[in-house]
């Protein structure tokens, strides 16, 4: 299902696009776990709702909205979904 595109950092996802979480990378087990319990687990579907001044992103996951700082968003790798899968 992830064949059509390679994972890229969440910060690079365009606003309004959906993607699936591939991995949360980087040091700091506490951060990885916090993101995990908030639903950012491999395979989870998220949508980038907006970008704030200076880098934070606003994402929607499982019907909840999360604000993530730029440093955090850079560590989340996502696989963008193609336009077709969005309309399904």
């Amino acid at each position: 299902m992830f064949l059509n595109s390679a994972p890229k950092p969440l910060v690079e996802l365009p606003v309004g696009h959906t993607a699936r979480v591939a991995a949360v990378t980087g040091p700091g087990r506490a951060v990885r776990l916090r993101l995990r319990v908030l639903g950012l687990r491999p395979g989870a579907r998220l949508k980038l709702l907006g970008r704030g001044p200076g880098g934070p992103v606003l994402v929607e996951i499982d019907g909840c909205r999360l604000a993530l700082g730029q440093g955090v968003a850079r560590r989340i790798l996502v696989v963008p979904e193609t336009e077709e899968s969005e309309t399904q």
Partner: protein
Amino acid sequence: MRVALVGQPNSGKSTLFNALVGLRAVASNFPGTTVEILRGRAALAGKPVEIVDLPGIYSLAAQDPAERVARDFLLSEKPDLIINVIDASALPRSFTLTLELMELGIPMVVVLNMADEAEHKGIHIDKDKLEQTLGVPVVFTVASRGIGLRDLIAALAQARVPSPPRYSEFLEELLGKLGAAAQEKPHLRAFPARYAALTLLAEGGTWPEEVREELASRDPAELLADERFAVAGRIFREVAQVTRARVGIRERLDDVLMHPLLGYLFLVLALFLLFFLTFRVGSALEGLLMPSLESLATRWAEVLGESLAGRVLAGALDGLLAGIGIALPYLVPFFVLLALLEDVGYLPRVGFLLDGLMHRLGLHGKSVIPLLLGYGCSVPAVLATRILEDERDRFVSSVLAVLIPCAARTVVIFGLAGRFLGPGVALALYAGNLLVVAAGATLLARVFPAAGPGLILEIPPYRLPTLRTTLGKTWLRLRGFVKVAWPLLVLSSLVLALFQTLGWERVLNLLARPITWPLGLPPEAGVPLLFGILRKELALLLLGQALGTEDFAAALTPTQMLVFTVFTLFYIPCVATLAVLGREVGWRRTGLVLLATTGLALLLGAFARLLAWAAL
């Protein structure tokens, strides 16, 4: 019987707590409002019950100090019953905590709160099916409007110990292999065998060899989180029907309020309105009250006469009147407006908007929440730093929150600078204060380099505040003033009057001269500033008594009024703040804060004097 309210942040535990035991807890619309354990008593279905409101936790694997407080309570004090409060609109995620709680072997009731919000989002839950699946009673509530409370009370009698959830074969096998090892750990012996095995798995370290091999490089805590999400998702699909969410104005609001440009404009506007409205309403009320209160005070003084007892008593009454005439007019509108901002859910949005800016200051967006709460009172602001994950961020945010003018200082800013120098000066003081806070953050970032992970913050839906919750919270905070500050004010006035009559205040004023003299303040300002350490508004209220008039313009020059306000704004935090600061960041650091704020206040006071001299 002891009942604990347990749930993920912002699921409405405090609102439910207030509905059950009466108005006791501050409830707001942002994750992390409650950072302490609150206990209340109620008679439910004729039986006396102790109800405990805990800070919200996403998982029992606690990460910030607020979460740790809740987890430690659950595991060490073992409540007799758990009310698991779930934000029904935040499913399936909220179920993951439910699954963890089901391992504890404690009778449970599940509350699906904000049921109206869930329907709005198109989530329809089959209550009977969920009861069957979880094996515990399930109740729908809308705690903010008191809906479903009677069902909840009735359900408490039906509470049952749920059977633990079943995970994947892989995990179940691991748990089986860990069972014996877990029972050997002294700190796990008190728990059900399965929970002990789960904890040992999550803690890591001393697993049997075969478990170590099977896990290989997988992080057991991540594995557990994923397994719980899998089960939570399955339960959700079984019991919920999801239809199209209604998209209304609330969903569109963030397009403007969190917009990179419009969001900033609105933020400035909102803060301006907060202070401007407080000042307009406050000065109108003060103008209405002051004349009649002053004539009352004059008449009292005449009646009580010139004897020692008479003058001391008149002083106490002056204190009482100053509390009504100067403090309350500004406090009431300010607390109402602040409560509105909190209850709508605006604070986390500000955290998002200012995240970039805060990063430049060595913090991140979440610190905005304690800082904004600082405008209300420094004590809860310092406590609110517990929602920050990083120890360094907590310390820096605590220090900065103390510099933010609290409601008591707002009384001084508006009652002195605003009233006699003009609202423009008051607003300039707020703006200048923010610059000082930013400079302080920059300085602290040099001494304590930032290493925090960055912003991770849930943004809750906007909620229309109800009259009951907003006024209730305003009253809770005002009560703090009426119950603590008022008696203190009366007592301080009484003491000051006694000192004045005996001539002792001159000694204290002399002691404070090293501060009042360089600032160009009259010696009489010394005692009020000393009392101001007890509570900041005392500085202004007692200044009136020390000078013998509430018409400060008649006794002080504009420069002196400005300098007095600036000094009061920054010098030593009040004793309540010092106490909580000592507890949260340590006494040595609190001592440093005390010295630094006094130095800062002297410096800025002198700067204000220079500025006024240059301007005139």
